[in-house]
C-alpha cells in the first residue's frame, strides 16, 4: 500500500455556529421564490382580513333594516344623558277601561358596589358588594314613559303631588341616606275611564292619594 501525504486544504475554515446556521436558513428561504411569495400572500391575507372585517362592521352587530351598516348602537342613556341599563320581562293582562292594581311591598333588599360605579353599560360588578339598598332603589308600581331603555320612570310615593311627576332615573338620584323601609307596603293604581290615580297606605291606615293623571 502506497503511503501518501494526505490532502491539506488551503481554504480558511469559516464559522459553523448559530450565525452561520441562521444565515443558511435565511438563504434557503429567500432562494425559493414560491416560499417567499407564499409567505407574503399569507401575511397580506391575515392583515387584509383583519382590516376588512373591522372596516365593514365596527362592533360586529349584524346589519338590520334599521341599522343597515351594522354600526354600533349608542348605549342607552337616561334623560340626563348618562348611560343606563334597563331590562324588562313583560307579563301582559288586559285591564279594560276601569280597574286597579294593588301591590304590597314588605321588604326590599339589595347589594351595591362601594367603589365608583362602572361607566360601562351592562357590566355587573362582582366584587366588593355591600348589602344594602340605595336611596334610588324602588319596588312597587313603577311608571315608565315607555318600554325603551333609559326612558323616564317614576315610582309613586305618598306625596301631595297633583300629577305624576316624572322623575329622572335612578343613577342621578343616588344620595346618601338610609334605605327606605317599606313604609308604604301597599300601593294601588286605579283607572276609571280616562282618570288614573295612585294611592298608598300602610297596613290599616286609609288610602292616601299619591298621584293622579288624566289622559286623552
Amino acid at each position: 500500500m502506497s503511503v501518501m501525504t494526505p490532502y491539506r486544504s488551503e481554504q480558511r475554515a469559516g464559522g459553523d455556529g448559530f450565525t452561520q446556521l441562521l444565515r443558511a436558513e435565511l438563504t434557503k428561504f429567500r432562494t425559493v421564490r414560491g416560499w417567499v411569495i407564499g409567505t407574503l400572500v399569507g401575511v397580506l391575507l391575515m392583515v387584509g382580513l383583519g382590516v376588512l372585517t373591522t372596516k365593514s362592521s365596527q362592533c360586529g352587530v349584524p346589519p338590520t333594516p334599521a341599522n343597515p351598516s351594522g354600526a354600533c348602537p349608542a348605549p342607552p342613556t337616561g334623560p340626563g344623558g348618562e348611560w343606563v341599563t334597563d331590562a324588562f320581562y313583560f307579563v301582559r293582562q288586559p285591564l279594560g277601561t276601569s280597574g286597579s292594581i294593588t301591590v304590597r311591598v314588605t321588604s326590599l333588599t339589595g347589594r351595591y358596589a362601594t367603589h365608583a360605579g362602572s361607566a360601562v353599560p351592562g357590566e355587573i360588578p362582582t366584587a366588593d358588594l355591600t348589602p344594602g339598598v340605595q336611596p334610588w332603589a324602588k319596588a312597587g308600581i313603577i311608571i315608565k314613559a315607555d318600554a325603551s331603555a333609559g326612558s323616564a320612570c317614576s315610582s309613586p310615593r305618598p306625596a301631595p303631588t297633583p300629577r305624576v311627576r316624572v322623575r329622572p332615573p335612578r343613577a342621578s338620584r343616588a344620595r346618601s341616606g338610609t334605605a327606605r323601609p317599606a313604609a308604604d307596603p301597599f300601593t294601588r293604581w286605579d283607572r276609571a275611564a280616562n282618570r288614573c290615580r295612585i294611592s298608598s297606605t300602610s297596613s290599616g291606615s286609609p288610602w292616601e292619594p299619591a298621584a293622579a293623571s288624566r289622559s286623552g
Partner: protein
Amino acid sequence: MEATIEVTGLRKRFGAVQALDGMTFMVVPGQVTGFVGPNGAGKSTTMRVILGLDAPDAGTALVGGQPYASLRHPLSRLGSLLDAGALQPSRSARNHLMWLAHSQGLGARRVDQVIELVGLGGTARRKAGGYSLGMRQRLGIAAALLGDPPVLMFDEPFNGMDPEGIVWMRGFLRSLAAQGRAVLVSSHLMSELQDTADHLVVVGRGLVIADASVAELIGAASDGRVTVRTSARDQAMTVLARAGAEVAATGPGMLTVSGLSSERIVELLAGNAIPFAEVSAHRASLEEAYMELTRDAVDFRAGVAR
C-alpha cells in the same frame, strides 16, 4: 488530522433484515477506494452510519479518528454525496450550494469555484428541478467539495451519467485521489470502477468479502487460467479435456483453460495438428472477479431464463 475513514465491526438490523453484519474496512488517502457489492449488500447503510444518519447497533465509524457528529466544520473534513435527488427543485443550483456554503461560513467565491470544478458553469442559475440525474450528480459532488475536505464519499455517483459524464467522473475521482484525498466511491457496476479505483472493498450481505487492490483481485480471478484462440474449437476442447484440463468455451473461437500450463497446451495442440492463433495467460475482467466473489452473496438473483 488523519484523512481516513475507519469502519470497525458495524452491525445494524432493520427489522428482519441484518443490513450490516460486522462491516470492517478502512479508506486511506491518495487512492480511490471502490465500495462494491450487489444491491442490498449494505453500502448505503454503511455510508449513512459514517455520516451519523443511522446509528449502528454495534461498531464504530470514524472520520479522521472522530465520529462525524463531533467534527467541527464537518463540510471541510468529509464531503459526501448520498442522494443526488435530495434538493429543492425550485431553487437554482447556485443557490443550493449557496445555503450550504453559508452554513459553514463560506461565501459566493467558493460556490463559483466548485461550480466551475464540476463543469456546471453555464447552467448554475437554472432551477435544480430541471436538471438531469447526471447534472444532479455533478451538483452533489460540487456540494461535497464546498469545504475542500480531505475525505470524500460518493454513493453511486455514476448513476444517470452519460458516457461523456462517466469518463469525466473517472478522471475527476482519480484527480481528487492524486491530490492526496481519501475517496470512497460505491457502485454496483464493476465496469464503472474498472479504470478508476485503486483499491476495492467488496461487500455482500452486510460484511466485507474482499478488501484488496484491484490488481490483486484480478490476479486472483485469473489465477492459472489460459486463454486459447483457435479456429478448431471443438477439436481443441476434446484434446485438452482428455489431457485433464478444465475447458470452457468463452466465445466464438475462444477457450479458457485451467489445470494445464501454457507450454503443455501449446505442445498438445501442436502434437494433434490443431491450428491456434494465440495462447496467453487469461486476464480476468474486474467484472468476472466480482461475480466470482459475490456469487454467494447476492440476495436477489433472476432465475435462469428458459
